């Protein structure tokens, strides 16, 4: 079983938005998709998934509509709204900045060749 990682606070929203960018999807789908794409590293339990979906819905970033699933079951499909799309852009930029910054701070550790102590 692959190792799972705790999610950084606030990243779940970003992951959901990014996943929904591909098109409308139900909650189960979102969770599965994130798990797949991350090679089973990110496993999202319903305990955090559904409150997050509802939070985004209340913020008006995603919209929910009842539809039928692949196997013809009634399911709630979430899709990105225009504001949500804009928000995704901003969040991606923020994430970019953040991860670059973190990478820079951690670079000596990650790349021993650049670490003077390790190389000596």
């Amino acid at each position, binding site marked *: 079983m692959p190792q799972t990682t705790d999610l950084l606070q606030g990243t779940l929203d970003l992951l959901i938005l990014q996943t929904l960018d591909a098109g409308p999807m*139900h*909650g*189960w789908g979102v969770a599965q998709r994130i798990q797949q794409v991350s090679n089973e590293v990110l496993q999202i*339990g*319903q*305990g955090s998934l*559904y*409150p997050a979906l*509802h*939070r985004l819905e*209340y*913020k*008006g970033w995603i*919209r929910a509509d009842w539809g039928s*699933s692949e*196997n013809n*079951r*009634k*399911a*709630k499909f979430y899709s990105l*709204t*225009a*504001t949500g799309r804009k928000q995704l852009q901003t969040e991606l930029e923020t994430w970019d900045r953040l991860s670059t910054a973190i990478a820079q701070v951690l670079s000596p550790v990650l790349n021993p060749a650049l670490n003077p102590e390790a190389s000596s």
Partner: protein
Amino acid sequence: MISEWLTRFRFLFLRQKPHELDEELRFHVEQSIERNIVAGMSADEARRQALIELGGLERTREQCHEQRPGWWMGTVAQDVRYALRGFRRNLVFTIAVITTLAVGIGATTAVFSVVDRILFRSLPYAHDDRLVSVGTVHSLEKQEFMMGGFFFDWRDHQKPFEAMAAQGTMPHACDLVENNPAQLDCLSFDTGFLPLLGISPVLGRNFLPEEDRPSGPRVVIISYGLWQSHYNRDPNILNRQIDVDGSPARVVGVLPKDFQFPTLQSADVIFPMALNPATQKTENGGFGNPMRTFARLKPGVSIAQARAEMEPLFVHTRDTWLPPPYRKDFHLSIRSLRDRETQDVQLIAWILLGSALAVLLIACANVASLMMARGEARERELAVRAALGASRGRLIRQTLTEAALFSFAGAAAGMALAEGLLRIFVDLAPTSIPFLKRAGLDLRIASFTVLLSLVCAGLFGLLPALQTPRVVALAARTVKSRKRTLLRCSLVVGQIAISMVLLSGAALLLRSFQNMEEQRLGMQTGGVFTVKIALPSFRYNTDQKQMDFYLRAEAALRRLPGIGAVGISDSVPPGGWQGDFRYAELSVEGRPHAAPGTGGSVAGRKVTPDYFRALNIPIVRGRNFTEEDRRSSQSPVIISRLLAARIFPDDDPIGKEFQASHEGSVSTVVGVAENVKNSGLIEQDLPEIYSLRRNVASDWEGRAPLMVVSSVLSPEAVAPWVRSQIAGIDPTVPVQIETLDQTVSKLADRPRFETALLSFFAFCGLLMAVIGLYGVISFVATQRTQEIGVRMALGATRVDILRLIAGEGVRLIVLGGALGLGVSLAAAQLLKSLLFNVGPRDPAIYASVVLLLALVALSATLIPARTAMKVEPVVALRYE
């Protein structure tokens, strides 16, 4: 953007149906099962794994719900409903809490509304924080004043002020001569006065500079009160000629309704001061007219800075105008306007507010203790709620909601109580506490009350809220916490300490008041009344006319039946104005002068011979003035025994001569009168000089005299005759008759007010503290019932049990009492200036207060202790 808001808005009102979430989750589980089956599990196993993976369903549901915007508002409503249900279920508890709070909040609100204007509320002038009273003071006049002779120099050369303005010192009686004549109070101010205070007339305008000149046009500004009562708020009053003191004056303005002179005097008609700076330097012996002056500090200039900057001007004035012996006694004084108005009552205002807050604190402690007791009882309920998923924050919020509800209910009841208390205050109120008659409950006071109740809720809500329900509480047996009992005990110690402080303060004031009431005044007050007649100065414009009037009045009153003696004086002791002298200026032949500025003041009174007879003041040596003396050219004096002992310590004073002041004439002592309480009820007696009021016009100049009459009939019976006699001489003059008992009683009004209020607070505080003590001890007793059973089974006698439980109470009483005693002894110094003939650390007072507190508190512990003592051991052992 708009759509986002619309979405948000929609969710505020549309309630998401709960089953939608359930359906969503069901779908999730089904998908999960399907995946597991595909992975090769059996149907049952797949379902089991899916449910395990799903985890706490209820928690998820709750969390989704909490994402809703405005979700917390719903919980507040829920908390309120829950709290109200609780209140209804436990009505006695609810009433006890609300009553306690109402007393605390009500007392504080009432007192706050009284002291607000004295201590906090901004004065009704623009830039009121920068307004000051400026002037000189000396030992006989402690309120700042200036003389026209130097006012203009100061005004034109000062640097620290933006503006300076003046008003007349005293309103004087003046006549409005119209078809509806009335006697009014007239005052004057200069053109700069209203702008300085930032006041503009409601109608018309301020005086123009050309009207504020010596022979300018005769114009007046009238008060709103006069405009309303006399002219029915006629807008055409402007430019109307009204007849004041027999000559016409044109009305140019009407003052605002709530306008108040910074001296707190009242006046109906205001003239321009119309002073001539040049002639002011020559009039009145070169000093000019006296006046009260006010100024506005430049922004950023402090009073201390202003004083430093004004000092050179003052020194110059002092050294130019005053002969050396006077200089030492003269000082520059600059005070904030608030201090000028209320300095002498600020201390008592703080004391009253402090005591009211102390009562409130005791009330809060009581309620906290009650709530904690109930918290114990509800612990299991709270633990169940916590176990069902209520978060810590949620439980705290629930308790705080209850506290806030209690507080608001208490505040509402307190407001009603405050209204009642305020009426009592106003009835009791002495005139010497300014603004009290105007005190009322307005929006500002109401907001204060609401704030107060919130603070209270915080105080007594937080303590019980911080008790975490423990898991142990879920167990079937109740386990009592020792720690919480400790907290309640310390609350009780605090309550006892505070009531000790209140009690000792009240006891000191009570003793002082008693001393004041019981002291000998040195004169007879029963059957004596004073007749005050306000002669309009324009018709009685010479000393001769005034004298003639009073001599006729004297003769007329003497003709009445039942009248003993009819004397005439400047005033009557113990309050009353006196023409004071400085002791240091008295000069006796053959004796050195006292050093300037030492020896204090000497009271002076100008009286007719019957003054001593009317007040029954014995002449202990020599003789009284006689009717013949009144017609002679000699000016004999009578001195009080106190003065005789000071200036003629070794000799017989009769026949000796002395000079009362530097300019005064030489007088011969003909008699020595017994000492009279002549400087208010509290102050030390002053030595006194009585000079004779002869039938010479010059002896009647200055302040309007007062007739002092003794009568064997009741004053009520004589009063109408007196009025008709005076009316027979001049039917228009107002006559004011007051018994001396009333006059003296009025002097005691303020101490009576202070004492009554503080005693009331002390009583409330003690009552509540004792209730708190009783509550805690009975709680402890019930808590230890089982222990008592065990002890009795092991052979403890009932007395042992009584001692055990009462001991608990005694510890609290001793601790609280000692703490309170310490604080009282430290704080009593504050009361010092209010006390008469009793030290702030009078041991007898403290002993009796300690005794009282101990007795009351002990009985509060003995009742529950006795109940504990009577418990049957078998019952106690089985007690759950």
